């Protein structure tokens, strides 16, 4: 028997939708970061894992508190704070004091995101804002590297990890000389290149058997995780590709003028470049939406990275390159609006 008196719902078209929600996209980015977390733990031990957890918790709690202060419903359920926390911790050295990680997370979310108006309104990648703050506030701790695959890494923390807040961190030189199997230089491949002119082998960079920030060492793993997101249609592949192209072109250009400068492959595989290309530059909110703009943004990041690496005072260049490109995003967008279907030539005025 037909129902002659149903309740009628009323909306406007379209009535169907097929899209992953924001929370789903963010959750998948977290999934994609899990292999990197595992790799970092295996590589550097429980200090790295503790740093990731503490920094992430700091981000989530900061977001929750700010929402409470603003009398708004909490926004931690969209998972974006979790991503910021993991991304931030991935750019730090394994022995980074945990309390500094807490400060970094607080600054990343508070200053980098919520003061701008929260998700969707941040001008800069929040994780990088946090890292830039840490770089300025704790220049020693953020450049103190420890050896990988230390025998007791799953049992003992690196001494500096548990440093008390606002106290000078424990010096790790003695510890490093005790645990390192052979002459550990305490320098990342980029620092070796910059200050000693030593170029690390590409295979070591690719598989991640070097030291560095906890999440950036294995280009191979980063690319696999990125490929998963691209496959799920949750990462815009154009940004990493443009960053890689920009870096390669700039590196080859500088190499042509100055053979001392490393070639493209080293530039791509060393430092945080691959990690930044896949996970940092691709932050949707702070990068352009226009097709041409996305490409220009990527090229700019690549070009600035190489320039800062070769001529700047610091070894970690990609962070500043991305922050600068983030700031340039509105400008890039305004000049790269897409040409519409059937566009007429503008009458000359």
């Amino acid at each position: 028997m037909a129902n002659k008196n149903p309740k009628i719902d009323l909306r406007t078209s379209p009535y169907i939708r097929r899209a992953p929600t924001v929370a789903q996209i963010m959750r998948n980015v977290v999934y994609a970061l899990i292999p990197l977390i595992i790799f970092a733990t295996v590589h550097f031990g429980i200090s790295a894992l503790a740093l990731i957890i503490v920094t992430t918790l700091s981000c989530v709690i900061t977001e929750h508190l700010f929402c409470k202060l603003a009398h708004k419903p909490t926004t931690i359920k969209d998972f974006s704070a979790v991503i910021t926390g993991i991304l931030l911790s991935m750019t730090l050295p394994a022995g980074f004091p945990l309390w500094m990680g807490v400060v970094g997370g607080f600054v990343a979310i508070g200053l980098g995101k919520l003061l701008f108006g929260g998700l969707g309104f941040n001008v800069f990648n929040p994780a990088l804002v946090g890292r830039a703050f840490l770089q300025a506030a704790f220049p020693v701790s953020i450049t103190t590297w420890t050896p990988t695959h230390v025998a007791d890494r799953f049992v003992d923390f690196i001494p500096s990890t548990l440093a008390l807040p606002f106290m000078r961190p424990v010096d790790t030189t003695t510890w490093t000389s005790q645990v390192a199997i052979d002459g550990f230089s305490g320098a990342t491949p980029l620092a070796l290149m910059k200050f000693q002119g030593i170029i690390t082998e590409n295979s070591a960079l690719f598989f991640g058997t070097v030291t560095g920030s906890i999440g950036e060492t294995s280009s191979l793993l980063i690319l696999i995780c990125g490929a998963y997101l691209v496959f799920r249609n949750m990462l815009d592949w154009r940004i990493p590709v443009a960053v890689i192209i920009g870096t390669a072109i700039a590196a080859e250009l500088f190499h042509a003028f100055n053979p001392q400068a490393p070639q493209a492959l080293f530039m791509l595989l060393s430092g945080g470049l691959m990690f930044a290309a896949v996970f940092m530059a691709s932050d949707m909110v702070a990068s352009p939406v226009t097709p041409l703009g996305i490409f220009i943004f990527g090229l700019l990041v690549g070009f600035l990275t190489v320039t800062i690496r070769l001529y700047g005072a610091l070894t970690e260049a990609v962070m500043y390159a991305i922050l600068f490109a983030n700031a340039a995003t509105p400008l890039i967008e305004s000049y790269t609006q897409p040409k519409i279907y059937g566009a007429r030539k503008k009458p000359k005025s």
Partner: protein
Amino acid sequence: MINLLQIFGKKTFAHGIHPDEYKETSQKITRRLAFPTKVSLPLAQSIGKPARAIVHKGQYVQRGELIAEADGFMSVPLHASVTGIVAAIELVLTAKGNKELAIILETSLSSGQAVLKSATKNIASMSRTELIQAVQNMGMVGLGGAAFPTHVKMSIPNDRNIHTVIVNGCECEPFLTTDHRVMLEQVQNLILGIQIALKCVDAETAIIGIENNKPDVLEAIKSHLANETNITVVAVETKYPQGAEKMLIKSLLGVEIPSKGLPSEIGLAVFNVTTLAQIGTLMPLSQPLIERIITITGDNLRKSGNYIVPLGTSLGHILNHADFFGNEAELILGGPMMGMAAASLDVPITKGTGAVLVLDKRATKDDEIMPCIKCSLCLQACPINLNPSELGQLAAKRRYDVMEEQYNLNDCFDCGCCSYVCPSNIPLVQYFRIAKTLNRERHRQNG
């Protein structure tokens, strides 16, 4: 500009979306629904001027009899869709949500419902002007949903030459299958309709564009085209909104209609297949448009299918006969991407209604609206290559003037791809519709 997609041999346009098709009714043969006891025929059946009623309350009219005449060139006449008595001429609720003047006919079920006889026409001997006049007299409008008066479209200004007629058989909206059935069941009439259209616009060739999800239709039409050397049929990619004339033209010919222009600007005229098939059916018999084929489909229906219904049939009558058993539903006149939701079971079928789609709660759950995360999915979906992300943010700030002047708001044709893909669930196309309406009002006030 070279169309890369066409180089690789794929007939399509850039961007767009691939919703699930739900075309389960495409294999159901068209049947006739029982006559309703009452029809209500709004005088505004086209997007032109409403017709002028020429009947009075209590008058007996025969099916096919003229009951309202065209009010000028931009208007089409209206004919009785049943034999019966004029019960009232009053305001009724329409799919648009407003009330419009309509002629209410009470069906006299005892009569045979025979269509009023008139002299048959010899089409071959008719001139271009006579043909166009005949199209207006039958009250024909675009049956694909736009309801634009067909004779107006056929009256090409003297300074424009049409070389090709595009016959739109894409039916790109999910769920809809009326064009599909018409192309299978009325091929001969369709070809006659195409020949009439060619004569009306003085063009030489016609191209029928069909989405490649209808191989049976392609086969059927091809087998009838052996003697029609000036008509070709081309398969285009199945993708929404392939059936938008701008998109179809790009897919078939690789050219674009200039912004805010008409197809005639580049020598083309576009007609929907069902419109031409109806012209081919009705014109030789000198019969007017009094009924149309609609798809009745969606959730909680025991008898979904393709049905011929008299114009003015109420939704309630249709749901009753399709055996609707749900408790709550959205009743959509047209497809799920661009159709209009009806607010009442009394809303009548008009000439532009191609489907009654009944949607249960499932796909229509309203998630929370999140801020735009600038994922650029909407830019990759917009067939016009607009920037819906930026437009949406401007709309939230009510910068409607900027939307129009700097971001080409008026090129948006409401296809809804942006809303479909938005992960933040932002009602983008809905915002744009409001913006366009408010802009029009502002322009009117400013003169």
